[in-house]
Each structure stands twice: as C-alpha cells, then as structure tokens.
C-alpha cells in the first residue's frame, strides 16, 4: 500500500531529482555567474557552505548555456591529470581523446584545434577535492585564454580552502552563495510541492513549521531536503499504521523534532 507521504518523501530525495528552485539568493548568484561567462576572465571562484545550492546552480547554468556559450560541466572531481585531460578533450571536441604524454601536449593540440574559436568555459564542482598540482595545471591552461575555469568550492568552518594560495592569488572574480532565509525556505518548499503536483499538502505547513525548519537546518537546502525526507518517512509510518495520529490539517511539531532527532540534528 502506497501512502501519499511516500510520494512526498521522494520529492526531497537529495541529488536524485533535479528541481531547480529559483530562490532570491540563487537568482542573484545565477545572474552574476552568467555575466562572468561573457567577461574575459580566466578563473572564477564560486563558493558557499555545503548544501547552499551551488551544484544545482551550476547545473542550471550548464543546461541553459551549454549550446550557445561552449560550457563544460564536471560535477565529479578528478584526481588524475591524464583523466582530466582526456575528459576535457572529449567534452571540448566531442571525440575520444588521443594519448597525451602531458598537459603541454594537450594544450598545444587543443590550441591548434580551437584556433579563433570562442574560449571554453569549464565549470568545476568540488574543486577543493582536486590535487594541488592539478589545480596548478588548470591555472596554466587558463593562461592560454582558450579555457576559462569556474571553481566551485565548499567553504567549511573546519578548513578555509579560500585561504589557500592558489585560490587566493589566481582568482579573478569571486561569487558567494549564502544559506537561505526563512522566506526562501518557504518558497523552496512551495515550489518543490508545486512542481510535483502536491500543492494540496502545502496546507500542512504553517509558519511555525518553517521556523522549526530554519532552527534545525539554518536554511541549508541540502539539510532541508534530508529533514523533509525524514519527516515524510515518519508520517508515512503513522499513515500506514496509526492513521489517527496524522489526521488533521496541520503537522505536529513533534514530527519535525522526531525527524531532527533521527538525523542527529538534535542531541538527546
């Protein structure tokens, strides 16, 4: 037996379903990122706390401009120079890469093939995971003006990757993405529900629920997804086994708290 909450739960499976929700803060960052694509920049740094929606934003830019602006998107990090060069060649020229003995050989070949063509914009996600040597090679590639790189970096409290030399001195432009405000969280939930034709369930959510969401997630979209998934998972259980508990027009804060306890957001 499938509960309505099962479908709602699946809306918030993080990373599985791509719904770009146009929030205020992401709209602003989106505009700035698109503008940088047209500027004669070599390196751009796009950073924010994990879960603020950087990857989703990059993916949207890639989907919107991959045809008209020569945009390449690498959502997974590379740890090996050869693999990176091969992937870049394949994406740039839409053909299998020949064997290159080093990045110099690749750069010569690529420069020759590109000639007077428009430069290629490479969107690199999880750039903080790339080896330092590879980052240095990428920087040298950008000097050729044939490639423009946009690094997306997680700014964590444990390690300030932005303080590293190669991000501090080589970057020409930086864009930061902050956590969402309560209104943005509200919009995020509403648009998610609307997008998946579950608008009728929005009446379950009241202002106090959004405040609780903010309290537990600090406006982090990834954490919101996790919490919402867990919330609907709990409701799914009650709906199937104790329907009287979930009967009503609004959700009990208890369910949010239970979800937060289960995810370790509340330490008991």
């Amino acid at each position, binding site marked *: 037996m499938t509960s309505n909450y099962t479908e709602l739960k699946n809306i918030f499976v993080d990373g599985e379903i791509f719904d770009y929700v146009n929030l205020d803060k992401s709209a602003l960052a989106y505009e700035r990122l698109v503008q940088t694509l047209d500027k004669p920049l070599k390196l751009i740094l796009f950073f924010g706390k994990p879960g603020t929606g950087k990857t989703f934003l990059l993916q949207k830019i890639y989907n919107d401009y991959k045809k008209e602006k020569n945009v390449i998107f690498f959502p997974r990090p590379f740890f090996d120079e050869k693999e990176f060069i091969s992937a870049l060649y394949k994406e740039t020229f839409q053909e299998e890469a020949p064997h290159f003995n080093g990045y110099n050989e690749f750069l010569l070949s690529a420069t020759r093939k590109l000639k007077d063509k428009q430069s290629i914009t490479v969107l690199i996600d999880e750039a903080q995971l790339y080896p330092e040597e590879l980052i240095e090679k990428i920087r040298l590639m950008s000097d050729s003006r044939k490639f423009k790189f946009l690094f997306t970096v997680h700014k964590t409290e444990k390690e300030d990757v932005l303080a590293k030399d190669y991000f501090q001195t080589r970057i020409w432009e930086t864009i930061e993405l902050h956590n969402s405000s309560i209104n943005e969280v509200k919009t995020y939930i509403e648009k998610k529900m609307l997008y998946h034709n579950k608008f009728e369930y929005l009446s379950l959510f009241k202002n106090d629920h959004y405040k609780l969401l903010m309290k537990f997630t600090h406006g982090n979209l990834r954490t919101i997804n996790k919490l919402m998934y867990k919330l609907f*998972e*709990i409701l799914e259980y009650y709906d199937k086994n104790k329907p009287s508990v979930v009967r009503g027009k609004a959700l009990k804060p208890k369910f949010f708290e239970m979800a937060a306890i289960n995810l370790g957001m509340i330490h008991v």
Partner: protein
Amino acid sequence: MFNAEEIIELERKWLKYKIKQKSKFYIIFILFLLVLSATTYQFYFQPNTHNKQPVIVKKVEKEIATKEKVKEYVPIKTITIKEEKIKISQPTDKNITKIQEVKKVIKKNIKSSTNPKSYYHKLEPRIQGNELFSSNGALTFYSPIDKKNIDFVTDNKISPPSQEIQKKEILIIEKEKKPSISIGMKDMDTITYLKEKFYATSNIVFALMLSEEYYNNKNYNESLKWSLTANDIDSQNTKTWYWFAKSKVKLDQKDDAIRALKAYLTNNESRRLNTLLQKIERGDTDD
C-alpha cells in the same frame, strides 16, 4: 520506511528531549521564584536600617518607651525647631558626638546672651536616679528638669544667633552624611506630643509625664486626672501616688493626699513618699 521498533525508540528519544527541554524552563522558573522570595523576604522582614536613624525625637521616644536607662530627656518645647529639616544618614557614634558638640556650642552661645525677657534651660541627662520612684525597682524615672542644669541666661539678640546656630548644626550634619534621609519636625507642644504618644502606646510613662507636665503648668486637675490614669495602669507605681498627692495638695485636698500616701505606705516602702508625706503634714507644700 521506519518499522515499529524504530518509531517507538524515536518517540522515546523525543519524550526525553521534551523533558530535557522543559526542565530548563522549570529550573529557570524555580530560580526566579527563589530570587523573588529572597527579595520579598529582604524587603518585608529584614530590619530596615533607614528606620533606625537617630532623629533626636525618635531617640527620646525609643528610650522612654523601652524604659531603659535614660541618658537624656529633653521636653519637646526646649528643642522646638520650626520648619527646619535635620538630615541624618546613619546612626553612628560619630554623628551623635557631633550633635553633642554642636549642642555645647549652642549652650555656650546662649550663655553669652543678655536678653532679660528670655531664658533657656539646657537639660543635661540626670545620672542619679530618683529614689522616690525606684524604691520598688519596677520603674526608674528621671525628672525632666533639673535645676542644676538649667541655665538662666539673658540675651538681647536671641533670635539671630539661635538661627545661626541651627543653621550651623544642620550644615555640619549635612556635610558629613550623604546619602541622607530627611525628617521634618513640626511645631508641637509637650502636652500634645505626650498625649499623642500615650494614646498610641498606652505606656504609663507618658501618663506620668503628662501628670508632671500639667502639674508644672499649674493645671492641677489635669495633673490629678493623669496620675489616676497612670495608677490605673500600674497601681504599685510610686510615681502615680506622688503626683496624685501633690496635685491633691494644690487642689486644697490635703487630707486626701495624706490618706492616699498613708494607704500606700502601709504595704509599701518609699523613702521619697515618706518624705513627701512628712512635708505635707508639716504644711510644707513648696516645690
């Protein structure tokens, strides 16, 4: 999806979380109540030090009321301060000493005055007890006026120096004591004051003082009345008999006075009442 065990465990954790969360409020609430109780107790039940300020009048009242050894008795009319305010902050010995010093200055100034129409008597505390009234050991009494301590002075410029002295006294006291409490003193005569005190406390001391005061003012009927009032309170008090007898003599009821004194002395001993009895019998009624 969750299974039943997981949900039960989750509900148990949630309950624990809620108890933990609410316990904080309870602790804060209990602490608040404790602080409130302590503050209330402090406010209502702790002795208020401000009320112990040794305003001259209050000090006299206290000493009389407690029947303790009286160091100084000053009838109100002798220390009347018109529309003046004495500001005293703390009942320190230093302050009292200062006041006494100022009084000495006042006395010195008064002595130097020469007005024949005016006189002042400065009252000093009587160290010696009045034998007449201490015979039964129940109460000691000190006459408010001791002739030895009365200074008859004359002065042509009484008012100005007196005011200056008062001002000096106030200024000195004010300089020393901050923050201060202001207590205003109104003009009040001794009789009114003593009556007020008697009606407020029903203390025999005030009745006796009234009897004496009326006697001194030659209002012997009232003096008799107050001696009887005092006797109603304590019939064994020798002072009540003393003022009763003296008033009777002045009212030309000498026989009553003698009969009363004899009746008292039949069962009690009092050298002073004996002396008084002998004087009355001799016809020596001068005070």
